[in-house]
């Protein structure tokens, strides 16, 4: 028994330094002092050590891992003010009922499949629509000028997005 125990100690002594070595640098941005304005889930990722991050990201298939890394890098490149704006908007989105959030994601999948120039037009139109009162919005959506600019799928997409993300109004 003593022999086994000694052997175990010897093995642990030999392999422990290997475990302590860093295992390569992560692709994600290094930790910086200014980490405020992160949604909680991203704050967790931000606060992880490089080893923890690697371990967490390794749980995703390679393609999804690359997307996460790219999106996080882009997010961290934003100025603190931009990040604050994103966080506020994200919190507003999180407060929506789950079905509404899921519907938004569904419509966004269609939106992402459009060519960049159509996405830009829709983005601009959505900004206008969100500022209208519900009655004005419905009237505008029925107007000929609106119908002339978009096809059926785009009109539907805009209608849904404007309803989901309508600017909150004071009572």
């Amino acid at each position, binding site marked *: 028994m003593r022999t086994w125990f000694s052997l*175990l100690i010897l*093995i*642990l002594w030999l*392999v*422990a330094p*290997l*475990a302590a070595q860093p295992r390569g640098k992560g692709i994600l941005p290094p930790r910086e002092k200014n980490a405020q304005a992160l*949604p909680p*889930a*991203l704050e*967790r*990722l931000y606060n992880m050590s490089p080893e923890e991050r690697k*371990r*967490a*990201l*390794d*749980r*995703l298939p390679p393609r*999804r891992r690359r*997307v*996460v890394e790219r*999106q*996080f890098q882009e*997010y961290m490149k934003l100025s603190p003010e*931009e990040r604050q*704006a*994103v966080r506020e*908007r*994200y919190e507003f*989105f999180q407060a929506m*009922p*789950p*079905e509404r*959030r899921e519907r*938004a*994601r569904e419509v*966004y999948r269609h*939106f*992402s499949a459009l060519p960049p120039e159509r*996405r830009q037009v829709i*983005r*601009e139109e*959505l*900004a206008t629509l*969100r*500022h209208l009162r519900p009655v004005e919005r419905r009237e505008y959506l029925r107007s000929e000028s609106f119908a002339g600019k978009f096809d059926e799928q785009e009109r539907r997409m805009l209608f849904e*997005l404007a309803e989901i*993300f309508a*600017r909150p109004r004071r009572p």
Partner: protein
Amino acid sequence: MECPLEMGGRPEILLEPGAERHAAECARCRDWLRNLETTRQALDLWQPEPVRPGFDRALWQRIEAEEARRWWRPWRPLAPALAAAAVLVGAVILSSGPEPRPLAEFAEIEQIEQTLSDVQMLRDLGLTQPL
């Protein structure tokens, strides 16, 4: 078309797409469809509550436990011998190889992935610009 609400009729056809055509000529069915709409609107009062946090984590823990049980079942008779071997192998793996990946932790990285994807959506739709 005979009124489906008459005795012996098939009232369920009022739930089919062509029902409005008949209802245009039948006051009784028109009333029924209007009432149906009102009833469905009343059901809208019952909106879902948010899912409590921790649901995913608890589920992944159950899945993990289930997986462990499934893996363990055929080896149970060899338990004493396996336990001794596991101590030695475990020590080596823990100190040199990557750490084990508990399924429960998938919940966390997925939440991060979902958050990033939602943030990307909000930015792509131009919703993060100041109002």
